[in-house]
């Protein structure tokens, strides 16, 4: 018979023996506040839209010049000759990302398993903060470290100066460890508690339990973690710029200079103008869409996971 919130008629008239009516002022104040909060929450959406629209608006003309096909599949990126084909850059990003995942993902998953299944509480108290702090180290410091430590070692191994895919992959691998390790550990921890004990009770060793029971059970969470680590590697900029050598050419070996989508933007942005600058914004909008796509993928996976369990 009544709206349980009683808000439909907010008239300040007294009912019967002094139950106060909600005053219009109170009602308006509460409603106003709610809308202010909503406005703030919508800022996140507005922010994303603004980034997409503005970067897209600046990058849009690549459709005409050099044209979408020439932009996406063009094999040469050369500001001097006005050629803006991003295939070499995309290949570069692909190479260092795969390299980083090959080195970093096993290390990160191993660290996560170590933290959740093997380490004693005392050791965990050291390792977990270390992982978290690794996430906080600025990328320019990683780049600097890569430049002065990793690059000379890479030079020994591959010949040349050491600028290139190997150095970039190693540095990126270290940088994605915290992302993947933290999320994998969460996934392992959320495995139903009984399974672990059941496996041990059947005489399985620790490793068998990890390998045959826990990792499969945490599979979707681990895939999420790897996807987000991949996103981090694709988007990482400063550390790559400092060790990759920054030559927009196709992959010619681990020791040869290379450029990625992100590094090329940093290198060129300081002097680019006209079509060149437009092409850089074109690169940025591609990065934006990749990261949005990865987020959507992770969300779809977690919905799938929620449905299954």
């Amino acid at each position, binding site marked *: *018979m009544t709206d349980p919130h009683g808000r439909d008629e907010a008239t300040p008239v007294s009912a019967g023996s002094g139950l106060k*009516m909600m005053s219009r002022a109170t009602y308006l104040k509460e409603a106003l506040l709610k809308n202010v909060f909503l406005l703030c929450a919508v800022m996140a959406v507005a922010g994303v839209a603004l980034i997409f629209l503005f970067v897209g608006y600046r990058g849009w003309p690549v459709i005409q010049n050099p044209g979408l096909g020439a932009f996406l599949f063009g094999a040469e990126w050369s500001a001097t000759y006005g050629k803006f084909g991003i295939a070499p850059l995309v290949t570069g990003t692909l190479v260092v990302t795969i390299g980083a995942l090959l080195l970093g993902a096993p290390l990160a998953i191993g660290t996560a398993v170590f933290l959740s299944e093997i380490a004693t509480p005392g050791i965990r108290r050291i390792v977990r903060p270390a992982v978290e702090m690794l996430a906080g180290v600025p990328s320019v410091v990683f780049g600097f470290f890569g430049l002065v430590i990793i690059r000379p070692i890479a030079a020994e191994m591959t010949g040349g100066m050491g600028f290139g895919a190997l150095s970039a992959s190693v540095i990126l691998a270290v940088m994605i460890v915290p992302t993947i390790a933290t999320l994998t550990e969460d996934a392992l921890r959320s495995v139903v508690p009984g399974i672990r004990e059941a496996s041990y009770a059947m005489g399985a060793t620790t490793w068998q339990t990890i390998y045959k029971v826990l990792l499969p059970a945490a599979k979707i969470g681990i895939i999420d973690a790897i996807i987000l680590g991949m996103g981090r590697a694709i988007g990482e900029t400063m550390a790559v710029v400092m060790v990759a050598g920054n030559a927009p050419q196709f992959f010619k070996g681990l020791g040869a200079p290379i450029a990625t989508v992100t590094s090329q933007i940093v290198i060129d942005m300081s002097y680019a103008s006209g079509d060149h600058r437009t092409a850089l914004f074109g690169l940025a909008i591609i990065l934006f869409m990749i990261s949005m796509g990865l987020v959507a993928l992770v969300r779809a996976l977690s919905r799938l996971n929620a449905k299954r369990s």
Partner: protein
Amino acid sequence: MTSVPAVATAHEALTGNPRFSVRGLEFYYGDFHALTGITIDVRENSVTAFIGPSGCGKSTFLRCLNRMNDLIPGTRVEGKITLDGADIYGPGVDPVDLRRRVGMIFQQPNPFPMSIYDNVAFGPRLHGVSKKSELDEIVENALVRANLWKEVKDIMGRGGLTLSGGQQQRLCIARVLAVQPDVLLMDEPCSAIDPTSVQKVEDLMAELKSSVTIIIVTHNMQQAARVSDETAFFLQERQGEAAELIEFGRTAEIFTSPRDRRTEDYITGRFG
């Protein structure tokens, strides 16, 4: 009042006007019909106990009386509840003001994470009292009425959460008394505190009922028998069905000569 069945005649002898008058209350959580056909009068200056097995809707009903259920999305109320003659679900009624007049004590003592003084002063400040001397007086008064003053008068600045469980519960009672409610709803106030504190809270109820109407939900039948003047027995007969008010009357009669078979079964411990 004529619409009230046999139940009403059983306690016509009691004095006092009805404070709460409930007629044909239906309550829904979304699609789930939780309560049906509740009709009851709660008299002023008395203690009324709601008893029944867990899940019988007695707490849900209690929360209808100060519209706490409004905070849960998807709940719906039908029927009529009046407080001193005014329809509490009437159009435009401010649930916030209703809750000031109908205070509530919860199962879990829930002091705010602030000092003892600020806990008790919270309500008065909310409703516009800001003068220090006035607040001091209200706080002292409320703590005295809650039988907590002697224990805390020298540690008013200490955090409310540092008190023992029983003291916390009395602090919550003082906090409610500070806004001078007409009714005090207590939702299993003693189930999370130690036995000596239970005694203190029960004594307190006896002292308070001259000035405040008290409704208590309890699992503990001995407690209902000790503290209440009238008792209402609720029961959900089958899983998934709406719960009903089975019997309502003077506590002494409910416990010695219940008229309904199901009440008797519950009281003698045959189920629930």
